[in-house]
């Protein structure tokens, strides 16, 4: 189920990127796309009834348990941070664009 949500989010982001002509809305679409990708990554490691892969004192007594896959969670951490970096950069560029053209609408910027 979660995987379908993730794919829908990815497609929503792509749709936004294809149709929107406003710089800020494009950045928002990019973020939706990234969230979809991140959700997809986490969903790939999920095991039904699995526990967070952290050892605590309660695990010593219980025998029958399984951890979810920790690797996708580690990967998603990297992906999130990279997403933060690109978003910050995109916003800074948006500010530059606004200073140059006085608008966020790509159509109103005209030919250079």
């Amino acid at each position, binding site marked *: 189920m979660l995987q379908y949500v993730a794919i829908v989010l*990815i497609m929503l982001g*792509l749709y936004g*990127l294809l149709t929107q002509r406003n*710089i800020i809305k*494009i950045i928002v679409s*990019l973020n939706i*796309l*990234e969230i979809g*990708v991140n959700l*997809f*990554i986490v969903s*790939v490691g999920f095991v039904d009834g699995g526990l967070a892969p952290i050892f605590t004192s309660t695990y010593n007594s219980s025998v029958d348990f399984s951890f979810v896959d920790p*690797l*996708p969670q580690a*990967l998603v951490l*990297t*992906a999130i941070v*990279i997403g933060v*970096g*690109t978003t910050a*950069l*995109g916003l800074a*560029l*948006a500010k*530059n*664009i606004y200073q*140059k*053209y006085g608008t966020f609408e*790509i159509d109103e*910027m005209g030919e*250079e």
Partner: protein
Amino acid sequence: MSAILLIVVPLLAAFISILFKKASPYILLIVSFASVIVLGYIELEVITIGGFASPYGINLVFDQYSLIGLYIVNTLFFLVVAINCVKFKEMSTILLIALAGLNGLLLTGDLFNLFVFIEISGIAAYLITATNKNPLATFNYLVAGTVGSSLYLVGLIILYAMFGTLNMADMANEIAVSGVDASLVAFPFLLMFIGLGVEAKLLPFNSWVKGILASSNKLTGPIIASVYAATIGFVVGRLLTSVFVFSDTLGLVITIILLASIIAGEAMAFSSNKVREILLFSSIAQAGLVVLVFLQGFIGWGVFLVVANAAGKFILFTVTNHASDELGTDEVNDLKGLFVNNKIVGLAFTVASLSAIGLPVFLGFVVKMNILGDLFAEGNLFIPAVILITSVVEGIYFVRLLIKLWYKEHDLPVVQYDFIIKYVVVILAILIMVFGVYTAPIETEANDLDLISFVEGGNL
């Protein structure tokens, strides 16, 4: 000495140079020069990081293939820096990080680590292109690059879910062992290929290139069209020949798209009147050709095609962008007679463009001839035909450009080339000629590279 220093030292230098703004151009110059020199002293090996053997830890593959890539990328990078470090002082730290990212891309043997390095070098590239003063084009590049790397990541995660590994060699191995149908892995590989195709300037995904390179300056032109293009060429080459498995239908579809990319690039270059546009469309076509050659499995000559392109485009973009920076225009008609007073630079430009066409005596000829020969030997007639026809088109527009740049009686444009630019382009041009005549070492090297089997840990 370990090859990991090629990544780590520029990184450390970058972190330190945040505090020492004044010294950072010198740090950049020293580090990039040292990276070239140090390459001769490193032994070929697979480097394990953190003491965890692959596929559990990340490894770096320093083999013959990455050695050639590192040589060409680090040398060209150093030359770009040598020409530009005075003018673009504020970019020093970012260029250091870009160098670390590019070396990482060439070395890494892990698919997720490759994604991280794509992002490092990508973000550095967005910032380097910000010096074009065209924020909208940079923004388009950022969006395209981010979507591309997200698609790459989705493809990679699907593969991880199927085979449970992230290491390149281990992934190729698992796919071979598990014996899954090629159509099952076609989709994730297609996603990853599209993701890399954005950076590699392949046809439907390259809308960003025009904005970036058409307004490029002396720094961004050579760096994006030559250094980055070479790096991504090597990366795509390694993945296409060693990791990716394409089913026949998908391979055919991609081949057709690549051929269309080549034809469209050459056609647009033919119809353009601006020097930078001609060069950028020509480099789109060349990128398509590089990927096509790797897709056909010719590693050795693919590598030298990348090398020949990188050296040629370096000269072409440095010469034109210096002129257009000075004159504020890159219309062919405004640059008429540019080389009348700059004969040395003009000769280097001529050598580079003739090599790009593939005329004899130049490196480009050797490479193109051998690729065509290999294709004919495989009984493939369609692809060589397209390559030959596009070469003719390329010949027409380059010769037309050269004639305009060489001949004019009066009103010559006044452009002074620095001493250092002259030296750099002339040396590169001489190298292109030398290896165009003295082909023996390239041929042996190319044949050696064809034998590498990455699955077994490179050609160590």
